[in-house]
């Protein structure tokens, strides 16, 4: 960890500090996880004290929070939203459905492994994870940002072809605009 930190320039440290303390979340409310976001944000758990705050559109958001299983139809939109977000950007997979399919492991229409399609920075385990777990996930993300290791966007950009191939496997009619950064 120390090594990572030493490798950062001073500018990066400042930038990452700002990024770490200002996490604007675009909650993509799929599945049952969406219901866990309101308690996280409101008085009881108050994620805003960590600088976590809802963002209305992908253009403004830093974190894409995927709260549950993703059907193929939804997946298309999620990819779209992710690609519209602006660098630097992070993905949090939320709940076991995003990790391994969870109870939908044999469903004909939900993806099982999110990180084949999008670069996930942090997974939050649970079915469903409670707000405490969510906060812990955010804290983990902050840590990774501060260390400069939350570089999912860069990974996505570098391995775009691989991701595209995976995405196109389940979405044959690919009509989206080109990914342009």
């Amino acid at each position, binding site marked *: 960890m120390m090594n990572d930190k030493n490798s950062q320039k001073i500018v990066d440290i400042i930038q990452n500090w700002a990024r770490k303390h200002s996490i604007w979340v675009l909650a993509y409310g799929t599945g049952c996880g969406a219901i866990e976001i309101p308690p996280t944000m409101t008085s009881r758990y108050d994620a805003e004290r960590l600088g976590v705050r809802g963002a209305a559109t992908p253009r403004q958001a830093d974190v894409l929070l995927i709260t549950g299983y993703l059907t193929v139809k939804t997946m298309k939109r999620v990819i779209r939203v992710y690609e519209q977000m602006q660098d630097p950007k992070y993905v949090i997979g939320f709940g076991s459905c995003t990790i391994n399919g969870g109870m939908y492991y*044999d469903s*004909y229409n939900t993806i099982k492994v999110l990180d084949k399609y999008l670069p996930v920075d942090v997974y939050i385990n649970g079915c469903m994870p409670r707000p405490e777990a969510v906060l812990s996930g955010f804290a983990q993300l902050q840590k990774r940002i501060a260390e400069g290791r939350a570089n999912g966007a860069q990974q996505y950009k570098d391995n775009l072809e691989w991701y595209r191939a995976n995405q196109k496997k389940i979405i044959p*009619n690919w009509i989206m605009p080109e990914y342009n950064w």
Partner: protein
Amino acid sequence: MKEIKENIIQRIKANFADAAEKNDFKDNRVDFSVKKETIPSILFYLKDEMGFIHLSHISCVDWLEEGELEVVFIVWSPKDKIKVFVRTRLDRDNPVMDNVDMIWRQANTYEREMREMFGVQFTGLVAPEEFLLEDWQGPPPFRRDFDTAAYAEKTFWHRPGREDAQDVRETIANRDGEEIPDFAKKYSR
């Protein structure tokens, strides 16, 4: 209640010769089976003449063994507080029947779903091709001969160790002191 039900059965039978009624349900349910050609006319009759103005649902049952699909229309009369099931059987290999969304607009949605999930074709149905399953390539997934696990295996990646859900199955199998219904056992293979 009983008189009303009798009355309904009388009237239906008088008007539709092929309607086979089944009146052994409790409370406010009446059940008819008709040929698929009769469906629009009987639904029209129920709606316009007998006050069954509400279409509750259209459902489909896959009788794999008999090689037939059964489409069930459930209509409801707010005045009589009676619901009527109208059933019809279709050939499983060529499930075609008449579209009824001119009777109830909402039938359109149900029909789209059935078209996608069971492969029932409604002649004259005007709707976009895709409904819930975008970019779907496999067979209609709600038919009983569709193997969802195999399809998932073929289409998606699995996190290693979760391909066959062995742990889940073992857990279920090893449960003690718990009545496991037969269908659950069957389901967990």
